[in-house]
């Protein structure tokens, strides 16, 4: 083919234009994704890689790191009794509070979504209050405290139910249930708000279509329409719950102090903070972080697999 009679476009020219366009088609991606990718690589990926390498060294922040191979890991897994206790505690705590917290988050956001918009906004505020007032975990400490300032002990004594104050915060029999209640209380955080917003984006016409197709009650509606429509938010919530559950530490310290009595509630996170922040054994702390990462990763793969099955 040759030049067009009207002289609009040479075929070669056209082809070159198309090729040029193809080559630079994705050039605007640099503008769109550049800021995120560069900062993400430098301030998130790079530190993770460095910290992974530190895991194989002996590093005290004063001298140049010394390569020790797998010594940190063998010491951690075989010789550190407190770590094995922390490992067990973390597993038990996260298996109880993780799934339970996740279900509570979804249940409440779904229930709240059922009421009309005005009270809905108010109820969301009530349920999100624990997260908004991040520092209020200390209120629980006042409530359960074993000395004369502890509210629950004071009330129980006033009503004559006990004669000696119960040591909620240092008696191993009470520490676990108290801890679980407090963690669940604070679990309506990130995932909860995401679920609330996700429920809003579900296409309303699907519900009408569902009603025509024979959906009878809210439970069927939940399983066949709502849950599959917000799979993305469910996955996000799952990741947040998993990392939250394996990363428990701060709340326990705020209420029970650090270290907890006889290491009853010592978690991997506490161990990490102890070695990284107090003893400055960075290599050892990095090895702990890597193990924590592997744990979260495995748990996440399982949960993602389960979520993909919903509504199918």
């Amino acid at each position: 083919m040759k030049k067009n009679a009207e002289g609009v476009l040479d075929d070669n020219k056209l082809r070159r234009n198309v090729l040029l366009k193809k080559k630079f088609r994705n050039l605007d991606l640099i503008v769109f994704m550049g800021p995120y990718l560069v900062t993400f690589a430098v301030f998130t990926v790079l530190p993770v890689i460095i910290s992974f390498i530190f895991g194989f060294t002996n590093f005290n922040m004063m001298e140049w790191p010394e390569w020790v191979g797998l010594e940190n890991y063998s010491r951690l897994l075989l010789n550190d009794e407190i770590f094995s206790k922390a490992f067990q505690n973390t597993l038990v705590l996260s298996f109880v509070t993780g799934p339970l917290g996740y279900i509570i988050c979804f249940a409440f956001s779904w229930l709240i979504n059922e009421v009309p918009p005005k009270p809905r906004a108010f109820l969301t505020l009530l349920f999100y209050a624990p997260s908004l007032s991040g520092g209020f975990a200390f209120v629980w400490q006042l409530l359960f405290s074993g000395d004369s300032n502890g509210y629950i002990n004071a009330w129980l004594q006033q009503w004559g139910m006990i004669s000696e104050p119960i040591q909620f915060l240092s008696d191993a029999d009470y520490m676990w249930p108290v801890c679980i209640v407090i963690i669940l209380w604070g679990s309506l955080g990130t995932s909860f708000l995401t679920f609330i917003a996700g429920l809003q984006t579900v296409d309303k016409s699907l519900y009408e279509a569902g009603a025509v197709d024979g959906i009878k009650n809210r439970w069927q509606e939940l399983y066949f329409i709502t849950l599959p429509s917000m799979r993305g938010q469910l996955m996000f919530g799952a990741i947040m719950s998993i990392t939250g559950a394996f990363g428990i530490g701060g709340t326990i310290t705020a209420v029970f102090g650090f270290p907890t009595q006889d290491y009853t509630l010592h978690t991997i996170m506490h161990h990490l903070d102890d070695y990284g922040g107090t003893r400055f054994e960075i290599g050892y702390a990095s090895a702990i972080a890597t193990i924590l990462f592997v744990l979260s990763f495995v748990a996440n793969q399982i949960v993602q697999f389960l979520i993909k099955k919903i509504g199918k």
Partner: protein
Amino acid sequence: MADSTAVKPKKKLKFPQFGKKEVQKDAFGNETKKKRRLFKYNRINRSFGGDLFLTLVLVIGGVFMVFPMIYAISNSLKPMSEIWLFPPNLIVKNPTFKNYTDLFNIMSNSLVPFSKYLFNTILITVIGTACNVFSASMCAYPLSKRQFRGKKTIFDISTLSLMFTATAGSISTYIIMTTLGWIDTYWSILVPTLGSSFALYLIKNFIDTFPDTVIEAARIDGAGEFRIYWKILMPAIKPGWLTLIVYAVQGFWNTGASIFIYREELKTLAYALSQIAAAGIARAGVSMAISVVMMLVPVLTFVVTQSNIIETMATSGMKD
């Protein structure tokens, strides 16, 4: 879009009007009895008993959830004599604002004026939140709606990074900041906010649910990529970025002592207030007042954004 005659008059969606009609018809045209309903809110498939039960659960749950907040507010209004009362009062008997006036007195005597701390915190909160929202949404748009090599890898790495504890990387981050020469400057706090994988993941979920057909239609009509992002996508995923704003404001507002900042005049409000509270039990009332004051901005942001989320969804009628 050029031919205006082709645009059809807007069709109103007909919802079943349970509140108004005495007799209503089901999907097949048979007459059914009017349902008794607790909420006058157009929803299908809801029973009266279920709504009642739901209200009960929510009220009881809500009281349990909000209790520590009420307690802290009540304690911040207690005079010193009432704070250490035995057995303690849950709700204040003789409310006083003394704790708050004490707090302001301490603040006005500080070495660095408190307005400086407040300004620092506001600066970090505003810039940090804006960086979070724009960088994440701009990156998430092509990740979700464009085709190019490596897009799955980028997203997978972002997701993986969510599972790594931030504490563990803090030493490495410090080394990086030293190399860049950003220690003791705000760059160390503000620049990393551009690369929040948390924000990216959150926003991408919302963009994923946005129909591709709308974007394709806009492209055919000649809209550029940036215009699609700004005029079509961002308004449609408003619930997403409003939710992100709540988290971001909450996080940045509570930024305490950073390991990268040493100069006193660069420190934040949360840090300064925590120093006041650290003085011990003599300031128990004042520290309660501090908790309440620090809570105000996150709560306000939350209320404003939440009412907006509900508004958006009531007016949008986007369909695939």
